[in-house]
């Protein structure tokens, strides 16, 4: 069941701003661990859990170390729901 890329972007942005309300929707696509306050590895774990719930997928915890930006997260989610 494929979801259109722009819908993935929109829904994942909502997940991201729930977790990091300091980011505006416009800033989210360029967000990285470095430019986002409070984003540590537990933040990634939280993002995984919220994305799992949002998309009905299971993001493997082995990928936590790889995901250091919104872009990477989006790629991973797209791979799973794609």
């Amino acid at each position, binding site marked *: 069941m494929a979801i259109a890329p722009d819908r993935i972007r929109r829904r994942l942005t909502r997940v991201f701003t*729930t977790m990091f309300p300091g980011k505006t929707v416009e800033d989210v696509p360029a967000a990285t661990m470095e430019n986002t306050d*409070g984003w540590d590895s537990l933040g990634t774990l939280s993002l995984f859990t*919220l994305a799992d719930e949002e998309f009905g997928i299971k993001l493997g*915890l082995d990928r936590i170390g790889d995901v250091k930006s919104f872009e990477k997260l989006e790629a991973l989610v797209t791979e799973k729901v794609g």
Partner: protein
Amino acid sequence: MAEIHLSAKTIPALADILTLGTRIVAGAWPLPETDKLRSLRVHVMGTATTDMLARAIAVGCAQENVRPTISQSLYGSFMQDVLNPASELYTIRPDIAVIVSEWRSLVSDLPPSASEEDVAKVVDGKVSQILSVWKRISQDCGSKIIHHFPPPPPFRLTGIAETYLPASYTNQLRQLVQKLWSAETSGVQIIDFGEFALEHGLLKAFTPGGWYSAKLPIETGALPAYIPLFRSALRGALNTVKKALVLDLDNTIWGGVIGDDGVDGIKIGSGDAISEAYQAFQQYVKLLANRGIILAVCSKNNPDVAKTGFDKPGSILKVEDFAAFEASWEDKANGLRKIAKQINIGLDSLVFVDDNPAECALVRQELPEVATVLLDGEPADFITQVEQGYWFQFQKYSREDFGRTAAYTMRAAAIAEQDSASDLPSYLRGLEMIGTAEKPTEAQIERVVQLGQKTNQFNLLTQRFDTQAVHGFLDNADNIVLACTLKDKFGDHGLVSVLLAERKGSELDILEWTMSCRVFSRSFEQFIMNALFDLAKKKGVEQIVGRFKPTAKNAVVSDLYERLGFTSDGEGCWVCQVADNHTPLQTFITAG
């Protein structure tokens, strides 16, 4: 923000935990400030990573009107922190110490041939280690402890042979928790993740992957369901437990509307699935009552018609099971206020159960301190819907728990009598009360401690003495401990008041005095004070001194000493001379 209604959610959303919980752990307070908030230091530690759990704990605290300052031991340094007096733990001195033990830290690799005795020795070693950790934390930090024990490992090897093999991990864990539970653990709240796993799925709530990748003691996805369990332990630690279950009638404890369908039309009993499900729910409620949960009815009904529902064969509950019966057309918030007053407990001790979303919404709005459970869907699921709040979780039963419902029903009968009596003295005389005020026997000590721990209203200093303290106190023959019992024509209330006084030279200093709220205002306090004066005279005491320390709940005794003829010394102490010609206070209780 949806967070406004956080307190009304039995199971919060995962997003609440990951966002609000994260901010609270970081030291922010993203929720409204209210004067009901109580600030507490909460330290989380264990043999697992606690960061995610701490977020859930933060949300659970907020739901219980606690604003926590959360600190955590580093992963792996839990024992070092406990054993090292210079560690942060002893600087923080948390009000609540939360411990999480993972199964790998609690079991030993024993040969399958090990005998029961061999295994018991190993388990006993672990037990004494944990008891000493508890003792250290509670004595040196003054903390209340909430300790999480793990589910068994997620493999069965050879099945039932393994389960009952003495050396198996499962058996070691079972024995360990049972032995710890049986030990004197006053003040320690045990959370058993083994039970939680049965309810929520071992493989879903405790995945091996979560452990290997992040040393998580529980899956993040299971944290919402865990929060009510944590809250029950927190209430236990803070003595804010739920005491009463208030039930709607129509479509809650029977199917249909009694006013429309009549007794014959309502569904309860056997014969069809719906009637059986309602009967099972009534049976569940009855079992709770047998364990000391007080029952009450709050229903929009004509009271005479409403009561006929309990006459239907198949109805397990009877009108006499309820300590308060509010059936009227008034709104339910008012009904609940009346019930709380009649039973004489706080609104925050009530759990209200109703099938009507509008009634539940009104109560949540008007009385957020009442725990509200909306029954939704099939009656077959009602028990689960109540259970998932973990509203009534005791660490242990005492004999008094089993008789409490009857005692409150008796109190309700006595109040009804009071309404009909023309004046208070003749009412009190008519109760034919018999009291005792004597040194407690060994068998009574548990109840003496429990009364001090649980009583919030008639509790002058709220010292919460534990068993050890009471024993220590009794060891000195100059001190006085009075365990006071009361019975009346409606029944035996049992041990309902405790007074502890310390001899200091020619003075007798009342260090604590508690009384169960069900026997207030019956001249029992005068009876006990007379007994204390008699003893004081015999011991050659010249004056008795008492103090009062206000809390949110004990205003009822703020003027107690004044009423008993004590005079204020202007510095917070109340004093009364023990003269030979001291006139006993008026009481309507005969010494038994």
